[in-house]
């Protein structure tokens, strides 16, 4: 598939469809290609971080930097494979796998405490500040106002601890039970 071609052949479409395990229909792949070309303004065959960040809706997302690490330099085939977790045809397992990959920044198949802490920081910004513990004056109970403490407490309640290494099956156990909604509709003309 040429980098600068603006037309997809039937063969290209089928190749992309296979690569993403049929997560998208052929029409959706054509739409995604139009979108890809629209984002790839300099026509380099991949969408750079800058080009993604020029979409304001994406730039204001708290997880944008983390996702950029996964998106940077992808060609169209890989771009579609990346988005396949968001297809309504994707299984819950595939969606959880995607979430796992977002956490597992070094890609070694294990999510450590710091990975989860980083994501929590991204989501809460400076609004849960690293402050001294406050003490509730009435109940005289220690209060948690710190990301580390929040995460540690919640982990311990779920049966893990700060040193635990979570793997894919742990994620499936934690996230699999409740309905995971993670779907995006590809606009088709």
């Amino acid at each position, binding site marked *: 598939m040429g980098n600068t071609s603006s037309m997809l052949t039937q063969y290209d479409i089928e190749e992309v469809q296979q690569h993403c395990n049929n997560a998208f229909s052929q029409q959706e792949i054509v739409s995604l290609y139009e979108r890809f070309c629209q984002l790839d303004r300099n026509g380099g065959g991949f969408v750079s971080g800058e080009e993604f960040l020029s979409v304001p809706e994406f730039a204001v*997302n708290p997880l944008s930097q983390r996702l950029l690490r996964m998106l940077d330099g992808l060609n169209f085939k890989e771009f579609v494979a990346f988005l396949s977790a968001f297809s309504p045809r994707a299984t819950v397992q595939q969606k959880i796998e995607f*979430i796992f990959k977002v956490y597992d920044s070094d890609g070694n198949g294990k999510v450590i405490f710091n990975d989860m802490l980083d994501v929590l920081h991204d989501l809460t910004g400076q609004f849960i500040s690293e402050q001294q513990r406050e003490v509730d004056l*009435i*109940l005289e109970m220690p209060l948690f106002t710190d990301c580390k403490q*929040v995460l540690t407490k919640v*982990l311990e309640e779920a049966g893990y601890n700060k040193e635990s290494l979570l793997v894919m099956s742990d994620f499936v156990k934690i*996230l699999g039970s409740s309905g995971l*909604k993670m*779907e995006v509709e590809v606009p088709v003309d």
Partner: protein
Amino acid sequence: MNSSEGKLKSSSSELDLDRPNIEDYLPSGSSIQEPHGKLRLRDLLDISPALTEAAGAIVDDSFTRCFKSNPAEPWNWNVYLFPLWCCGVVFRYLILFPMRALILTIGWIIFLSCFIPVHFLLKGNDNLRKKMERALVELICSFFVASWTGVVKYHGPRPSMRPKQVFVANHTSMIDFIILEQMTAFAVIMQKHPGWVGLLQSTILESVGCIWFNRSEAKDREIVTRKLREHSQGADNNPLLIFPEGTCVNNQYSVMFKKGAFELGCTVCPIAIKYNKIFVDAFWNSRKQSFTMHLLQLMTSWAVVCDVWYLEPQNLRPGETPIEFAERIRDIISVRAGLKKVPWDGYLKYSRPSPKHRERKQQSFAESVLRGLELEEK
């Protein structure tokens, strides 16, 4: 009742109430999962709402849609229609275009041969000179419109020249200005352009009274606001025409209006402009083509057909902020011209969104996390 609210640092963004609340526009449902009940590990690990929003933005986003030029639907796809289309092309390029170029040249000759003498010879007699220059500018704009075979239908009462009055319109291309100017000599506020356009701006448009701004200058905003105010207070200045979107949008959407035009203490008269796409897409995609190319494209199309509505003048209501006023006017214009509103600032074409949008999301998520923690303390 215990005072166990987690300490939240107030966002510095609260001090900058520059824009209406984007959350009012974006799809409802928080982007970050708000845990209900006791906080569990699942609530912290489930980042699916934030991911869904990010993926949604990657696949399609309302901002990019505003600046998408719509390619004309090709209708020449069979043996019978194709020759017809070819004839059309020949006619447009070899007959219409030269005719139009001729008309435009004649127009320029007439204009310059009147304008230059008037400008220099009547230096003493300012009033008369201004009147004649105004009429001449209206004339050259009419010639421009004729050179694209512009068919403009004006609706609504013609604007009357009164002080303390500004006009605002939606913006699709620089030709918006020409189309409006042929009817009434407005003073305009424009981005200074390079090349021959800039030359025109600094010579001829000076005579109707124009204000220049430079998008890239940060301090520029205050200077411009001051100039706007001075101009609008002046009794015999031409009425000011402002395009509050700040950038050209593709005539199907409208981006947020900058509040500068709405805090001058003047009556605001909205003008809505809608181009008929069947004839030509009048959107000037400044990223894709220069203004010269854009004009040439217009001159080789069949016609530029558009509707202009002069709408009812509005005043700031008691208790209304300039931003609310701007949004109300944007509503009026968008409804009239059939535009969809998007919550983005047009300048995001050139810069990144401010961190306060992200901060708002982070704040609401942090609050719900702490609420969930609080629940188990009880």
